């Protein structure tokens, strides 16, 4: 698979999510392929340097704050992330919030379904854990 960069990966994930909004009208084989590709793309992104802890970019710092809030129980599994509130609460640009939420999706902290981000229960990222075991 060709490796898209962070911004392309985010844009492609959004496009695929948009297409999957109408999954009941697309050929089943295409839906299955899109889902598999999306999953592989996120897994591929998880191994990239920008997805690792220690990234000092603005979006990465914001993602760390949100991740702490989730760990502290401020945001609980199943909660929707109020996009506009995040934007205002942290005085960040919409793009920074988008990048931060994408990073958390790559890390398996959030899931994006039908254009909305949800907090995932902890410990769901079994595939990537098995990948890094010897």
């Amino acid at each position, binding site marked *: 698979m*060709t*490796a898209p960069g962070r911004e*392309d990966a985010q844009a492609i994930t959004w496009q*695929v999510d948009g*297409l999957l909004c*109408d999954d009941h009208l697309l050929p089943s*084989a295409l839906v299955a392929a899109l889902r598999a*590709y999306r999953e592989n793309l996120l897994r591929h992104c998880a191994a990239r340097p920008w997805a690792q802890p220690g990234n000092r970019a603005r979006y990465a710092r914001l993602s760390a704050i949100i991740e702490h809030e989730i760990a502290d129980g401020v945001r609980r599994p199943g909660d929707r*992330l109020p996009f506009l509130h995040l934007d205002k609460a942290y005085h960040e640009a919409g793009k920074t919030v988008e990048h931060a939420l994408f990073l958390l999706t790559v890390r398996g902290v959030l899931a994006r379904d039908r254009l909305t981000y949800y907090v995932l229960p902890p410990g769901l990222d079994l595939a990537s854990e098995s990948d890094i075991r010897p």
Partner: protein
Amino acid sequence: MTDQDDRQAQWDRLMAPLRNPAFYQRGMTSADEQTLRDIRGRLERHLDYAAVLPAGLVAMPRDYLPELADLAGGRWEGAGLPSQALGLCERIGWDIAEGVWKPGERVYSDHYYYRLSEPPVTVHCAMQILAARGDVTIRDDGYYVRGKR
């Protein structure tokens, strides 16, 4: 009676024809046409990334695109309603998350008809889907936001 209640009563009158099953059997609707445009646009944007996508994930949408233009045989009739309703569900879910409608508060569904020009049938379907998902409850002929489960 408040202005909002008055508007809701107007809305309920608008909804009345939807209880007649014949309403749903009427060929291609604007929702169907909009859905075809949406899917075509999404597939085309997807293909903008052809250079970094696997070959199969470029070929499959390219093969499918011409089928969206084939309106023969009523293939796409009725396809738009669930699609537009699901899209509106996300919009309403988003509004709930953003605090436009708070837990326990009534969702004035006519808001989406007047402000977003969504057809009544789409709004009705979206609210029913949200009720089935447990995001809203139906009480006294109205939809109310459920608290966190």
